[in-house]
C-alpha cells in the first residue's frame, strides 16, 4: 500500500518537476530520490504484513510476498534509473513525463502484486499498459517507434477486451469479483467459469508475451526507444507475471478446474519456450534477440504459474529479480553502443573490459549458469515443475530450450571476447561504471546466496 501511494505520488511530483526543472540531468536525481523513498516506504510496511496480509475494502491485500515483490521491482527500477537514467533525455523533450509514466507503471505493478478483486486486476493491468503504449511511441520522429506504439496499442486493447470478457464470464458464474469468493473449484466446473478462466489465461498470456500471444513483443521491444524497452521487457513483464501468479494461485489453484487451465497453460508454456528460443537463434540485432529472449524467459517463468506451489512463488520473485537485473544491465550497455547488431559487440572486451565483463556476467545469468542469479532462478522454476510431478515433458523441453538459449546468449560473449573489431562506444562515466559494478555484484550475490532474498518470503 505504501508502495502504491508513494509511487503514484512520485509520478505526480515528477510530472511537475518536469515542468519546472530546466536541467534534465536533475530530473533524474529527483526520480532516483523518489524511487528510493518508495523502496524504503515499501519495506517499511514489511513488519506490519509479516504475520498476515493487510486488507483494504477487499480490494487490496498487501502480503509479505507482495511487499517483497514490490521491493524487487522498485529495487530493479532503482538500478535501471542509475544505469539508464541519463538516456531518457535522448528520447525526447518530456523527460519528467517519462519518469512520471514509469512511476505510474510502478504503481500499476504494486497493484498487480496485491490486488484482491478482479476490478483491481483490470485496473492494474490497464495502468501498466497505457503508459507503455505511450513510452513505446515516445520517440515521435522515429517510424519504428510509431509503429511499435500503434501495434502495441491495438493488440493491447484487443487483449483488454478478452480479459474483460473473461472477467465477465467468471462473474456470471461466481457472482462476485472478490478473489477469495471466486471459489469455483468445488464441485463440477461451471462452463461460464471455465470459459472465463481460459479467456483470462489468454489475456494474461498476452501481457507476459507467451506464445501464441507474443507477436507484439519482438516488434514493440525492437521499435521502442531502447531505454524504455529495457524497462518494459523486465520490470513490467515481471509485474504482469506476478498478477498472473496471484490471480491463479489464490483463486483457481485447487479442484478439477486447475486441470483444465494447467493443461492449456502448459501447452502455452511449451510453445512459448520453443518459439522464443528458436526465433532468438537467428537474430542479427542484439536488441531484437533480447526481445525474443524475453519471450523465452517468459516461458520459464510460466513454469512457476503452472506448477502452482510455493516454490513457484519464490521462483517468480527470484526470476523476476535475476532476469530484470541482468536484462537491464545488458540494455544499459547496449545503449552505449552505436551498433546494436552482434557485430557491434565485436572486440568490446579489449576496448571496454568492464562493459564486456558486465555483459558476460549478465549473459551467464540469463543463460542460467551457476553463481549468477539466473541459475537459481531457473533452478526454482524447474524444481517447481518437478515438484508438481506431471510436468516432466515440459521440463525436458525446457532444458533443451535452455541449451539453445546458451547459443544466442553466448554469441554476444563470443563477439565481445573472441572476435576482433572496433566497436563504437559512447564515453562512459564513472557513475555508470559504479552502477554497473553494483549490478554485477548483485547478480553474483544473488547467485551465491539466493537466501538473502528468499528468506523474506
Amino acid at each position, binding site marked *: 500500500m505504501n508502495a502504491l501511494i508513494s509511487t503514484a505520488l512520485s509520478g505526480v511530483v515528477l510530472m511537475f518537476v518536469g515542468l519546472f526543472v530546466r536541467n534534465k540531468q536533475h530530473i533524474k536525481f529527483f526520480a532516483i530520490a523518489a524511487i528510493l523513498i518508495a523502496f524504503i516506504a515499501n519495506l517499511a510496511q514489511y513488519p506490519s504484513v509479516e504475520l498476515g496480509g493487510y486488507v483494504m475494502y477487499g480490494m487490496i491485500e498487501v502480503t509479505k510476498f507482495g511487499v517483497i515483490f514490490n521491493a524487487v521491482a522498485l529495487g530493479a527500477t532503482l538500478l535501471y534509473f542509475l544505469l539508464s537514467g541519463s538516456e531518457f533525455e535522448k528520447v525526447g523533450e518530456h523527460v519528467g513525463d517519462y519518469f512520471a509514466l514509469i512511476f505510474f507503471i510502478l504503481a500499476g505493478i504494486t497493484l498487480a502484486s496485491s490486488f484482491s*478483486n478482479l476490478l483491481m486486476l483490470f485496473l492494474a493491468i490497464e495502468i501498466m499498459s497505457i503508459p507503455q503504449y505511450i513510452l513505446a511511441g515516445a520517440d515521435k520522429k522515429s517510424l519504428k517507434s510509431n509503429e511499435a506504439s500503434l501495434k502495441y496499442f491495438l493488440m493491447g486493447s484487443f487483449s483488454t477486451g478478452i480479459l474483460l470478457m473473461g472477467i465477465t464470464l467468471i462473474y456470471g458464474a461466481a457472482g462476485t469479483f472478490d478473489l477469495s469468493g471466486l471459489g469455483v473449484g468445488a464441485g463440477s466446473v461451471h462452463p461460464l467459469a471455465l470459459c472465463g478462466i481460459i479467456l483470462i489465461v489468454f489475456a494474461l498470456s498476452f501481457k507476459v508475451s507467451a506464445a501464441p500471444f507474443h507477436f507484439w513483443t519482438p516488434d514493440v521491444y525492437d521499435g521502442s526507444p531502447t531505454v524504455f524497452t529495457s524497462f518494459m521487457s523486465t520490470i513490467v513483464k515481471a509485474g504482469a507475471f506476478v498478477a498472473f501468479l496471484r490471480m491463479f494461485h489464490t483463486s483457481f489453484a485447487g479442484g478439477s478446474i486447475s486441470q483444465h487451465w494447467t493443461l492449456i497453460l502448459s501447452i502455452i508454456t511449451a510453445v512459448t519456450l520453443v518459439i522464443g528460443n528458436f526465433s532468438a537463434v537467428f537474430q542479427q540485432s542484439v536488441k531484437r534477440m533480447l526481445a525474443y529472449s524475453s519471450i523465452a524467459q517468459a516461458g520459464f517463468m510460466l513454469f512457476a504459474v503452472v506448477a502452482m506451489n510455493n516454490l513457484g512463488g519464490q521462483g517468480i520473485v527470484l526470476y523476476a529479480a535475476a532476469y530484470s537485473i541482468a536484462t537491464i544491465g545488458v540494455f544499459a550497455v547496449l545503449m552505449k553502443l552505436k551498433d546494436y547488431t552482434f557485430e557491434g559487440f565485436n572486440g568490446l572486451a579489449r576496448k571496454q573490459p568492464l562493459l564486456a565483463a558486465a555483459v558476460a556476467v549478465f549473459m551467464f545469468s540469463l543463460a542460467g549458469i551457476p553463481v549468477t542469479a539466473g541459475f537459481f532462478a531457473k533452478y526454482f522454476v524447474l524444481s517447481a515443475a518437478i515438484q508438481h510431478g506431471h510436468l516432466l515433458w515440459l521440463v525436458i523441453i525446457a532444458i533443451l530450450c535452455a541449451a539453445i538459449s546458451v547459443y544466442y546468449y553466448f554469441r554476444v560473449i563470443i563477439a565481445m571476447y573472441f572476435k576482433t573489431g572496433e566497436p563504437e562506444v559512447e564515453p562512459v562515466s564513472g557513475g555508470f561504471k559504479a552502477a554497473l559494478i553494483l549490478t554485477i555484484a548483485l547478480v553474483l550475490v544473488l547467485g551465491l546466496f539466493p537466501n538473502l532474498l528468499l528468506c523474506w518470503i
Partner: protein
Amino acid sequence: MVLSVIALVSALGVVLSKNPVTSVLCLIVTFFTIAGHYIMLNAQFLAVVHIIVYAGAIMVLFLYVMMLMNLNAELEPQKRNWLKYAGAISGGALLVVLVAALRDASMPALSTQATEIGLIQNLGQLLFKQYVVPFEVSSILFLSAMVGAVVIGKKD
C-alpha cells in the same frame, strides 16, 4: 428482441461498411441499442453514462479524428479478399466455439421485476464506500493517459 437485431445488424455494419464515417454512425446506432438494453436491465445510470461517454464523447472524438484525417471510402485501405474471409471465418469460428462452450450452462431466467441496484443513489453509495480504492486508482490511469496525450500529441 428488436433491439438485439438492430444491434447485431448495425454492428455488422461497422465491420462491413466501406466508408469509415458510415462505420462510425453504425457504431453509434449499436451503442444506442445497447443503452436500450441497459434500461431493460434496470441499469439506468449506466445507460445514461453510456450515452454520454460513448455516443457523446468517444464517438465524436472518433469522428473528429476521422474528419481531421479526411478519410473516406476511396482512401480506405482494403484487405485482400482471402484475408477478409479468413478473418471472418476465424471470427465465426470463435463464435461457434464460445457458443459451444457455453451452450450447456444452465442459467436462470431474468425476472421482469425491476431492481433498484442500477439507480445512481445505490451505485454512488457503493462507489464511494467499497469502491473508493479503485476510484482513486483510476485517477492514476487518467493522469497517465493525460500525460500520454501530452507526450504523444504535443508537437516538438
